[in-house]
């Protein structure tokens, strides 16, 4: 081992670059200590929130700090990764708060739940900052393994176990694909670090084959066609707070790495990516049209959103759009999506926890009268998902499509914009159900108030509106 290299590796700079990740790791250990020491259970929420706060603080520093390339260029910290980390922290917080009072039989495992949630968050942070296939792989597994467990968390429920198993089996398959791809890339280039691969090696067939396999495994995580098949099943079966987390966080983390990793793809892959993107949008939107279960519907909607973002990646791969503008577009889109989908799935969680039954369009009927706050915020989320102006969802779409136009992929952009018309069909159905239809006579609505859910719904709604109305502030900080 090269000693000089080792010396350079562990510097104060490196520590500060890894600070958000380290904060989460320390938090995980502290939570374990809380689990071990008797009588400290009441500290758990405090430790959890404190960890998130610390991670947020460090991420905020990164978002406003200079670019650091550390650990022999295998890990970077810059404003983009800082913002990604902030998004992950928010996604974790949203999922955690909506999970309050959700579990009944599993309530005694809440400590484990929180540890797993934090581990997954740490994995996401690692994924977003990694510029090396090994570091990314560690992050990926740190994210995936806790999520397999969380998906099957309600062990008494058949659907939950099935979701966990399905996600696990396919996820392990995707991981194997990633590994084989990484091995091929390594064979082609002699390195695992993205920045030290040279152009000649990148154009070798073996490298490209490896790149394609890696891309395929990432497509599994962001769930684009035809790697999306697991999504509706797993989203439906997994406990609702976990679904919230998966829908927002996992997708964001995979996109965060897909962007730098795109150097492995040749520019003529752009057409392929664009075709996949549009097919995904079509499939997600058309699939959502016929769903009645809300988690499934939102899952399909999430698939179509992943397709939209993939279009921006295609624009970058084609070389027509600058990496910075694509990264901004996707980050913005994802930021809006974290609030929007986080809020939407979160409200589904809250409704589900009141009745204990799956939430369907049928059960949304008359929500405006029973729960005006939930109905209003849910309507806002639906509009944002549909991309109506003055919501974050619109600007995200606008930025993504403008990168596609920038890269002269006008035909694809047109197809994408038209897809959003179909999408509105099912989003409106939700609003109609909540505001303009009466509930069935025998409908049960459950009992109990959910103050945390109320607060989070409002926070997410504010986030959606701020991103929609005052994007300048966000953009300024992103640079």
């Amino acid at each position, binding site marked *: *081992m090269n000693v000089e290299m080792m*010396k350079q590796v562990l510097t104060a700079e490196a520590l500060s670059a890894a600070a958000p990740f380290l904060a989460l790791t320390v938090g995980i*250990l502290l939570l*374990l200590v809380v689990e*071990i020491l008797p009588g400290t259970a009441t500290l758990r929420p405090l430790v959890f929130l404190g960890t998130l706060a610390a991670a947020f603080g460090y991420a905020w520093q990164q978002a406003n700090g200079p670019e650091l390339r550390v650990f022999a260029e295998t890990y970077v910290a810059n404003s983009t990764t800082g913002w990604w980390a902030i998004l992950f922290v928010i996604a974790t917080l949203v999922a955690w708060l909506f999970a309050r009072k959700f579990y009944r039989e599993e309530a005694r495992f809440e400590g484990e739940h929180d540890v797993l949630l934090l581990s997954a968050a740490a994995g996401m942070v690692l994924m977003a900052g990694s510029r090396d296939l090994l570091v990314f792989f560690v992050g990926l597994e740190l994210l995936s393994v806790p999520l397999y467990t969380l998906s099957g968390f309600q062990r008494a429920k058949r659907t939950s176990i099935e979701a966990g198993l399905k996600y696990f089996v396919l996820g392990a398959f995707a991981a194997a694909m990633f590994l084989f791809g990484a091995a091929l890339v390594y064979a082609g280039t002699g390195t695992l670090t993205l920045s030290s691969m040279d152009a000649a090696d990148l154009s070798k067939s073996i490298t490209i084959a490896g790149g394609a396999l890696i891309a395929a495994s990432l497509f599994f995580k962001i769930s684009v066609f035809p790697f999306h098949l697991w999504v509706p099943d797993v989203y439906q079966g997994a406990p609702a707070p976990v679904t919230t987390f998966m829908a927002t966080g996992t997708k964001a983390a995979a996109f965060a790495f897909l962007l730098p990793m795109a150097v492995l793809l040749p520019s003529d892959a752009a057409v392929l990516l664009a075709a996949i993107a549009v097919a995904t949008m079509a499939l997600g939107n058309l699939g959502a049209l016929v769903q009645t279960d809300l988690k499934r519907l939102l899952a399909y909607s999430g698939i179509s959103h992943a397709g939209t973002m993939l279009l921006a990646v295609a624009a970058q791969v084609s070389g027509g759009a600058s990496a910075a503008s694509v990264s901004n577009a996707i980050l913005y889109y994802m930021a809006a999506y974290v609030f929007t989908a986080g809020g939407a799935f979160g409200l589904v969680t809250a409704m589900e926890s009141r009745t204990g039954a799956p939430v369907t369009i049928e059960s949304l009927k008359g929500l405006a009268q029973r729960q005006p706050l939930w109905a209003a915020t849910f309507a806002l989320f639906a509009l944002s998902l549909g991309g109506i102006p003055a919501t974050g969802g619109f600007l995200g779409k606008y930025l993504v499509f403008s990168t596609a136009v920038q890269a002269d992929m006008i035909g694809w952009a047109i197809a994408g914009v038209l897809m959003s018309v179909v999408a509105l069909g099912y989003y409106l159905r939700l609003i109609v159900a909540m505001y303009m239809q009466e509930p069935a006579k025998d409908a049960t609505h459950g009992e109990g108030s959910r103050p945390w859910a109320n607060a989070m719904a409002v926070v997410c709604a504010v986030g959606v509106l701020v991103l929609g109305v005052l994007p300048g502030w966000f953009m300024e900080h992103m640079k």
Partner: protein
Amino acid sequence: MLTGYAPILVLLALAIGFALVNLFVSELMGRRRINVGKADPYECGMEAQGSARIRLSIHFYLIAVLFILFDVESVFLILWAVSAGDLKAAGLAPLVLAEIVAFVAVLGLALAYVWRKGGLEWDR
């Protein structure tokens, strides 16, 4: 050209040979005085014959998995050990120590957690 594979063949032959030789040698040289206790492969534990579809206590599985996890984690010690000498020579001895202490502490914490949750208790 195939000479390169010779070591693999030798390894294979050794492995198979070792097993076979041991079997045959004990078969040839051993004295047999069969009784009930001797017929069992072990004198404690579960019944070796009969249906494979009996229910095992979940703790077999739990202990096995815990063992594998801690066992495999120790592979990272190799990486540490390989670079420890160089690092120490470079004057980074405290770092070397800190690394391994942190690593073992984390494993220790995990073990403590397992213990506390009753993962190591046989009767529960």
